[in-house]
Structures are given as C-alpha cells and as structure tokens.
C-alpha cells in the first residue's frame, strides 16, 4: 500500500517527485490513476496529491487557451461552451466517460497518463499543443508531437510534472471529432480528430489524428499532405479514406481486430474531414 502526501506548493511537489522518482505517482483527478491502482495494474509506493497546490487550477483564454494541472474537465467544458463552443476541445470533452468522471478528471491528467483511446491526447496532437513540464532540474515546453511517442508512451520523466497545457485558438478553423465505441463508458475503439484551415475554397492545411484502444494516437502526415492545396470533392474524400487506411499503425487488441480498426480509421477520418469542411466558410465546394 502507498503512503500519501498533500503538499501546498509546487516546489514541495517537485521535491517529493525528485525523492521518490518512479515509485511515486501524481494524484490530480485520479480518474485514470485510481482504477489502475484498484485493479492492481499500478502499485505506486507514494501518491502525491496536488489538489492543494495553489495556482494550478486555472483556465486562461488570451491568445491561446491555457489550462492548469488541477483544472477539471467539466470546468473546461463549461468554460468553452460559453467562449469557444465550436473548438475541437469543446467537442471532445463531452465524449469523455460521463459528467461524474469529468467532474473529477483533469485535462492535464488525461494528457500525461494518455491511456489508449483517450480523446485529449489526440486533440493535443492535432493542435500540436504545448505542454509545460517542470522538475527540480528545470522547466521545459514540449510540443505534443514530441511528447507523444510513436509507441504510445509519453516523454515525461518520473521527477517531472505537467503543470499546464496551451492550445492555439481554432476559432476560425473547421474542426471535428468522430469516434466509435462499444459501450457508453469504454474508450473508443477508434476515433479521428480534424483541424482544417482553408483559403479561397482550397484546403490550406489539414491536421488529422487517429486514435483508439489499439491505436497509439498518431498524426496522419501522408493524408494531411494529400489534402493540402486541394478543393474538397467526393474523389478527394475517397483518396483520403484510402490513404488513412494505408498509413495508420494499428495494434490488435481483444475484440478489435487490426483490419477492422484500420478500416474504421479511414471512414472516421473522412467523416471528420467532411464535417470540418462543412464548418469552413471558405470551402464552398459540395462534398457528398
């Protein structure tokens, strides 16, 4: 069984993490961590509860959207509904488990724990959000595309803490998230997130992430290039679907065969793209 501490300053947290290293775990919302402890997957020796640390529970929308480590998913959801209802993050948050889980779960906790199939790491990748990481050794800003490794692990050391994350404003982009899940509370078998910018009827930039239970969240570089500079059309949608199916790296997991996941990834990617096109005012071409 673990021991527990509830420090009140970030310096104390960093001291504890530096002392305990991989034997300690950070407890923020606990909605990913506690199930893993309950079912025996994780056996930490120490939990450091950061909920009493001042200055970590904030949402700030200036040029970018910044979210602190203790900010609950539900609070971000309510904030965005009022301020940025169409943003990709605003669409993704209500898909996470249910509102009771989101009342405790934090955005940064999900980003740092990055369980397979979780929506938020996929959104961070799509945005290439900036993750602010601290330890006694210093501070660093890590772009999500470096933070999330190809094998699905994350680039954070045992003595480090993700203190906040910042997302670029996507108010003028076309955004969409699509997913398929087997039960209301399970992680999606497969999902796709899209952020599309356009100019004069052409796609100027596409960012597309595929994720799922057997799919480490990954950007579809090939599919993104395929669409760049193109006018949306039914033919382009077909090409996009096929390109994603070819490009996506999928692991087989129980109940979700790799071939099926690959097939669905293409369909969901295209569906999300189509919805993002519909949102982009400058894309007038009809996609059927």
């Amino acid at each position, binding site marked *: 069984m673990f021991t*527990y501490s509830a420090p009140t300053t970030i310096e104390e947290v960093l001291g504890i993490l530096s002392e305990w290293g991989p034997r300690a775990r950070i*407890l923020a919302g*606990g909605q990913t961590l506690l199930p893993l402890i309950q079912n025996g997957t994780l056996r930490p020796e120490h939990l450091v509860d950061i909920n009493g640390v001042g200055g970590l529970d904030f949402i700030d929308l200036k040029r970018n959207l910044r979210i602190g480590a203790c900010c609950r998913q*539900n609070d971000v959801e309510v904030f965005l509904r009022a301020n940025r209802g169409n943003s990709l993050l605003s669409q993704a948050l209500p898909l996470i488990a249910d509102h*009771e*889980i989101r009342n405790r779960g934090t955005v940064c906790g999900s980003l740092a724990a990055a369980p397979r199939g979780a929506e938020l790491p996929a959104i961070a990748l799509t945005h290439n959000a900036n993750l602010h990481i601290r330890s006694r050794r210093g501070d660093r800003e890590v772009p999500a595309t470096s933070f999330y490794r190809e094998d699905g692990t994350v680039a954070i050391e045992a003595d480090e803490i993700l203190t906040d994350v910042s997302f670029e404003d996507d108010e003028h982009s076309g955004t969409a998230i699509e997913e398929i899940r087997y039960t209301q509370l399970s992680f999606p078998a497969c999902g796709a997130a899209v952020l599309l910018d356009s100019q004069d009827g052409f796609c100027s930039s596409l960012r597309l992430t595929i994720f799922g239970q057997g799919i480490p969240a990954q950007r579809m570089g090939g599919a993104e290039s395929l669409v760049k500079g193109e006018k949306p059309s039914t033919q382009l949608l077909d090409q996009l679907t096929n390109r994603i199916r070819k490009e996506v790296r999928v692991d087989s997991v129980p109940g979700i065969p790799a071939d099926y996941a690959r097939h669905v990834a293409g369909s969901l990617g295209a569906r999300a793209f189509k919805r993002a096109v519909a949102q982009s005012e400058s894309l007038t071409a009809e996609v059927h």
Partner: protein
Amino acid sequence: MQTLTIEMKLNGKACSRDVPVGQTLASLLREGFGLSTSISCGEGNCGTCSVLIDGRPVRSCLMLAVQASGRAVTTLEGLTDQLPRLQKAFSENHAIQCGFCAPGFIVAAAALLRAGSRPSEAEIRETIKGHLCRCSGYSGMVQAIQDAAAQE
C-alpha cells in the same frame, strides 16, 4: 498503514475520522459510516457509489477518503430536498427492482434536478449513462426523473 485525520461535512453534519490513506471514500461511507452507498465495480464503471462532493456528483470509489477532507459530502441519506419526490416517482414508475443501483441513480438524478432544470429525456439519459442497472429498469427511471422534475 499511514492514517490521517479528516474533517468533513457529511450529509450536513460536521464529522471527523481517522482514515487509512488507501481507503476509498466509497468504503469509508459504507463500511465506516454505514450509509447506503453501494460498492460494485470499484473502478468507476458502474455508478452505484456516486455521491455529491460540494454539490457535484462524483464516483466515490475513484476518490480517496482523505481527499474528502474539508469537503461537503452528500449521500442518498442527505438529499433531504429532492428525496421524497424522487422516491415517490421511482416507486410509481416501478423504476427499481433489486435496488442495488438505486443510491447512485438517485444521487445523479438529484444533482440534475438541483440544477433547477426540467430535463429532456435526452438530458436524463446523458446524466444516467454511466450508471448500470442490471435489472435494466432504465425506461422507468427516465420517466420517474421526468415526473419528479415536473413536481418541482
């Protein structure tokens, strides 16, 4: 095992307890205080253990008891305002069979009604989607919650 003394407001009354740091809030409420909070999956998947923390519904199995320190915790027993009409509506709609899941459903429903709403069927289904009833009394519960809201 390390223990800590916590002070919280439980169903409106201030109380203090020594708790092992590894104990979940669900376990403290059921085994320590003898309250109705049911414990089933222990991993946040079933919703039987839901309680209100400072008025917001959460899974008490996914919270350590020590984390309730300084908080207002409300279980089924503390829902004095909404409980009578929810009980009546659940009974009239045959919304409960074995009753194991009821404490979680009623807490979730009370939180929804407390938000002062006349929720639509879709909103009710969204609210209870994380709660499992193995007798599958869902339709009756949705109707019961709508009836209780109408009695406000």
